[in-house]
């Protein structure tokens, strides 16, 4: 009986979908040409990779903003009578004892929930900062060219020549207490070169386009050409690189915190928790596993989003 209703529902729903999709994206009766952006959005919604990553990222953002929704226990409340060797109660979903307790008797579940905030803030803030700074740098170098480009490119090479993780370690080592914002600045200080390179290349390609020449011939000012003509057409590859880099920055923060040179207590960070759990790896691997899995899922979500955005924006892959 249920088979019949299933079968009956599918064909009924299918034409409905077909009718709705074009009507939602095109206003005219006969295919009005879609812009790159609406075309990309059209593609994105159909990509399962995008849907999965969007749901994951939505949960991460909610967790970062209102961790209290997920647990009522403080991540800093330690009770030394609850030993870390007591195995986790995997049956008690979302309870404080769900993922067990760490060496100081703090609920691992609560720490995993509260750790989302630092990771999300670092990832988003570094990406925004790097995109604005690197984008400006690359745009100036790419558009004006000549001696200015030569000088800016050497500066870019200099920063790119410094090993990323090692450089960040040296910068962060100068601070005794490292808050989220110090880590953000340190990562952005060394991380802007990638975006700057991509923007520079993209702007150089775009500025040779006919419409840019036409705008110049019509007497448009430099500011207008850059903002109205070059920026909208050169920004696609930059967005792709920035989205993928976001996951990388989250991994970098976790790696630095793990090394003891990133965030410092009392900030709750997955990297710090992995580092604390490594001493009990042989007897109580769950202490290390929970924060490690959370870092991986978070990075995975952003890398998947980046992949999906690239597939949607790159016409070569169609």
């Amino acid at each position, binding site marked *: 009986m249920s088979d019949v209703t299933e079968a009956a529902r599918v064909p009924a729903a299918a034409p409905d979908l077909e009718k709705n999709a074009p009507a939602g994206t095109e206003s005219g009766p006969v295919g009005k040409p879609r812009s790159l952006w609406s075309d990309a959005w059209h593609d994105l919604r159909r990509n399962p990779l995008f849907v999965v990553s969007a749901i994951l990222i939505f949960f991460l953002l909610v967790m970062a903003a209102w961790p209290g929704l997920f647990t009522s226990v403080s991540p800093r409340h330690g009770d030394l009578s609850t030993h870390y060797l007591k195995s986790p109660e995997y049956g008690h979903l979302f309870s404080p004892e769900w993922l067990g307790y760490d060496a100081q008797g703090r609920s691992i579940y609560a720490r995993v929930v509260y750790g989302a905030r630092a990771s999300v803030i670092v990832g988003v803030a570094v990406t925004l900062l790097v995109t604005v700074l690197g984008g400006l740098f690359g745009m100036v170098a790419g558009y004006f060219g000549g001696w200015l480009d030569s000088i800016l490119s*050497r*500066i870019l*090479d*200099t*920063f790119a*020549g*410094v*090993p*990323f*993780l*090692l*450089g960040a*370690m*040296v*910068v962060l*080592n*100068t601070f005794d207490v490292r808050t989220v914002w110090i880590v953000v600045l340190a990562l952005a200080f060394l991380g802007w070169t990638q975006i700057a390179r991509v923007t520079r290349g993209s702007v150089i390609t775009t500025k040779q386009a006919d419409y840019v020449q036409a705008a110049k011939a019509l007497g448009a000012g430099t500011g207008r050409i850059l903002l109205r003509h070059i920026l909208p057409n050169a920004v696609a590859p930059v967005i792709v690189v920035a989205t993928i880099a976001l*996951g990388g920055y989250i*991994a970098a923060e*976790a*790696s630095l915190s*793990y*090394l003891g*040179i990133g965030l410092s207590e009392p900030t709750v960070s997955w*990297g710090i928790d*992995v580092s604390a759990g*490594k001493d009990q*790896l*042989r007897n109580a*691997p769950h202490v*290390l596993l929970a924060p*490690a899995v959370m*870092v*991986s*899922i978070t*990075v*995975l979500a952003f*890398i*998947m989003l980046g*992949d999906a955005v690239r597939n949607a924006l790159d016409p*070569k892959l169609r």
Partner: protein
Amino acid sequence: MGRYVVRRLLQSIPVFIGATLLIFLMMYSLPGDPVRALWGEQSVDPAQIAAMKKDLGLDLPLWQQYWNYFIGLFQGDFGTQIASGRPVSEVIGEALPVTIRLALFAFTFTTLAGISLGVLAGLRADRLFDRGMLFFTLLLISVPSFVLGYVAQFVFAFKLDLLTPTVQDSEAFGDLLMPAVVLGSLSLAYVVRLTRTSIVENLRSDYIRTAIAKGLPRRRVIGVHLMRNSLIPVVTFLGTDLGALLGGAVITEGIFNVQGVGNLVYDALFRREGSTVVGIVTLLVIIYLAVSLIVDLLYAVLDPRIRYV
């Protein structure tokens, strides 16, 4: 060709000066006095500290210290460790072979496994193997190396008892296997993806259709025509990656207790041993610059259309 090499060498001079200066300034603007720290809590005659600083050249203004350091580099002098009094070049010289062995092992693994998996995936685009590789590389990129390292250590050393959890003898193949695979895993994912994309793109090109149409055997079409054209972006990546493997060994060496450059720089950073940190970073910058020049020259070998002027 000769002129191109000269121009590239000239271009790398400001980059070299800039990158070392950047690290030098960051390191020596650290608060705390490494010379005073030698005595710990004990009281010490300020004149003794001043004399020792004069000996080490630490009483000079920062720009002069950098100048002396820079001149010293050309004579192979990387400075002196303050606490032990040993030359930094000697300390690095002990640790470097271990890291180079580890990095080359990881590099070989990445290159061989990455290119072959990427070619297989590219030739079977959108089939099951390709989809599987896509997912596998996604996982490798997402899992940070410190997580991968501990998971590998737990599974292969503690549970299955197949490998030693930490490296006892850095020349033994079996000991280095796990750290090398962990170190190379991120690059492996990138190499697979780059090779795959490149293969898929080139498979649609005219010269491949021509090669198939004129009846060349499949092995020759793929092995010679397709591979040579598809490997250019992969070679670029692998080149810059060799430097990254040397620098990225900090985490892997820590997990598996490899006594290499990564461990050395980590300890030096915590002991605020400026000369060692600056020395190692300088060395990495030199390697990075040399490798990127070699990669640029390799293009001409892979693609005869590229001419250097």
